[in-house]
């Protein structure tokens, strides 16, 4: 167990190093930050002075190791755009993204499971077929288009919901929340739907398939033969057995909801880390881009590590593998 854990952690750290290295080598192709930082009246000396000051005259490998050295001490540098510490900016922006991800994740889970069950049980019904057809839209329409369509309908035409921003937020011990005000809750609706729609259709289709499979099992047939009520068969016996893979997938998808909130945040001007990242790219704000990419890779690597460890705990075959030498 210990050897396996250590090996997996070592692998994870190695992955993080590689991600950082690749990211840093890409930054050179994003453009020259100095150009954005100095006005049009700058002189060549200004450019050189600033480049040297920021260490941009060094090869990227040197820049990378300097970044790692600082990052290890918890210092992610100063944003070129805002002139404030990157860690502070990320912390300030994180609640917006996490709340959005949480709400859309919950919505995707609840809606996906409910609709999945519905379409599985009434799989020949008219309603189920409509839902299945509509779900294709959820899977195939790009996020930004869904967002803009929702804005057009609910903000411009109907005027019910705000088209941008977080509304009023309340600060609770360093965490800004939109859950406590009416405008904050209203502002959450459209972005959450936009962000969660894809996940919801994914979960719905997964639940439906699993459910159909389970419903064909012998124990369900026996339950029916025993004369149990339909409701109890569907929800107590079938659903429970459906949920295991659903929960695994949902856990893994949580990472991507956070990471891919970028587009939704841009469309709705949602002040989260995704919007921050987009701004950073346009401005070639290397410290912010680096910190964001590292954060996201830490998150993904972390989730995968936890999943691996859980499998190890659950699945005895992995333990047997160790004696036979690797897997």
């Amino acid at each position, binding site marked *: 167990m210990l050897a396996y854990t250590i090996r997996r952690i070592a692998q994870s750290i190695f992955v993080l190093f590689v991600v950082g290295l690749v990211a840093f080598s890409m930054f050179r192709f994003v453009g020259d930050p100095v*150009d954005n*930082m100095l*006005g*049009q009246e700058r*002189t060549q000396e200004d450019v050189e002075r600033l480049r040297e000051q920021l260490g941009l005259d060094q090869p990227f490998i040197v820049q990378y190791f300097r970044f790692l050295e600082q990052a290890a001490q918890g210092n992610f540098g100063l944003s070129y755009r*805002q002139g*404030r510490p990157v860690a502070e900016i990320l912390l300030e922006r994180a609640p917006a993204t996490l709340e959005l991800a949480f709400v859309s994740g919950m919505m995707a889970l609840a809606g996906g499971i409910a609709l999945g069950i519905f379409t599985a049980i009434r799989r020949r019904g008219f309603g189920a077929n409509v839902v299945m057809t509509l779900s294709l839209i959820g899977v195939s329409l790009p996020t930004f288009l869904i967002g803009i369509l929702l804005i057009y309908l609910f903000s411009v035409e109907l005027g019910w919901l705000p088209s941008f921003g977080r509304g009023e937020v309340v600060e609770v011990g360093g965490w800004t929340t939109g859950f406590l*005000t009416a405008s904050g809750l209203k502002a959450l609706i459209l972005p959450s739907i936009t962000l969660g729609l894809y996940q919801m259709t994914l979960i719905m289709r997964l639940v439906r398939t699993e459910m159909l499979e389970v419903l064909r099992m012998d124990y369900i047939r026996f339950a029916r033969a025993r004369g149990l009520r339909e409701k109890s068969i569907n929800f107590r016996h079938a659903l429970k057995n459906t949920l295991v893979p659903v929960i695994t997938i949902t856990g893994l998808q949580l990472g991507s909801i956070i990471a891919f909130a970028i587009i939704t945040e841009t469309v709705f001007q949602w002040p989260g880390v995704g919007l921050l990242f987009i701004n950073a790219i346009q401005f070639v704000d290397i410290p912010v881009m680096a910190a964001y990419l590292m954060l996201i890779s830490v998150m993904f690597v972390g989730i995968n590590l936890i999943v691996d460890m859980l499998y190890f705990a659950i699945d005895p075959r992995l333990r047997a593998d160790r004696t036979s030498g690797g897997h």
Partner: protein
Amino acid sequence: MKKTGILAAALLASTSIGASAETIRWARVGDALTLDPHSQNEGPSHTMRHQMYEPLIIRDMSGAFQGALATDWAPSESDPNVWTFTLREGVKFHDGADFTAEDVVFSFERAMTPTSDMKELLSSIVEVRAVDDYTVEFVTDGPNPILPSNFTNLFIMDKDWTEANNTVEVQDFEGGEITYATVNANGTGPYRLVSREPEVRTVLSINEDYWGADEFPLEVTEIVFTPIQNAATRVAALLSGEVDFIQDVPVQDLSRVSETDGLRVETAPQNRVIFFGINMGADDIEADNVEGANPFADVRVRQAMNMAINRDAIQQVVMRGQSQPAGMIAPPFVNGWTEELDTAMTDVEAAKALMEEAGYGDGFSVRLDCPNDRYINDEAICQAVVGMMAQIGITVNLDAKSRALHFPLITDGLTDFYMLGWGVPTYDSEYIFNFLLHTRTGDRGSWNGTGFSNAEVDEMIVSLASETDLDVRNETIATIWDVVQTETMYLPVHHQVLNWGLADGVGIPQVDPEDQPKFKFFTMN
């Protein structure tokens, strides 16, 4: 059930609490980068500062000079190297401190330090001295007739406040520390800073003690600013009534906005001209398929290219009428601009003949570098020009990319045919000549990617800085423009047009040509 009832009631209540008539909700694509008055010489940052801080003089929304913290200014009668400014009396900073000459001297000295982004505008100043509490003298290294035009974005801070908050130095990225002035403000301006979350929301409220309370409408009592990056979302926010004013309406949405009840679009030519630069100076260029020669070195080729651009077509098709075709690379309100120079004609046949004459009847191919996120429809303009050049036999390979990648190509001399836009904050041709025409040396010619270099012209450009006889100076400017028009190293395209989308209740004297709304001039009803 009861819960939903409460929630619904709460939702209803929140919609009925509209903004009071005096609040203006304002959005544009990007936020100010910092509030520090002398860091980041950049449009959106200056616009935000103009609400809170004041320079000695400003341009009103029509572009004319107007005294702000200064009431009078003139070159000294005894010494041509000195400008004397008389300051406004009885002005107070937001924290209650008195505004005096000491603050002016301090602010200019701060703006001239190496980490300041404003220092280039003040490079001719040798000394700033306070004669008495309300008189300041600026000593320059030679006569500088247009010195005041460099002061319109040079904001005055309170010396004591700045020192007390340990923010005397303009923010320097090396320090790795955030300075007080980047997120706090204490100016003399019409609005005070209430709260600011960078990139999210900035709230300003009226300064009750503003010196100009009787002179300006000052009907806006609160400003709520939100940057909204996505153009469709920005327009949607205006259409749905969530904001009252957006500064950048995309050209494709203009009719949508102006046809909506309660909204209107106001338009004015912007202080920015869009043009192409051609590398005429190199012996051979890399971006073409002609070996051992530079086709751009031949003036006939450049003139042919200039004649091949159909500016009216670009205006109608690409810009949907939202541009003003240009024949010179100076915006209309700049000293030196003439209507005659600003007209260009399209003549494809004559252009073909010129190409033939120059020995390029069969044409050649060349790469065009173009930004895709900087100017209005920049990439689409370049695409249109590709087709127009094809008519005279020049095969253009378009390479469009982000501004962060595009502009270094020009300043590093890595492009031979490129798009550039230029604004003239000083409203004088000298500014254009300094950056776009002078031989690339030291402080001058940093944006001259054309390789044009003419010692005589350089001399004339330098002489502009110290020529006090305005007639002689204007004559020199005209002579230099003649050279520019004959040599045709730049192919002007058009003057950009600003489109402000406003709710009907918001009144403005006119659209500010520098795209800097100053809310003290706004009216609300």
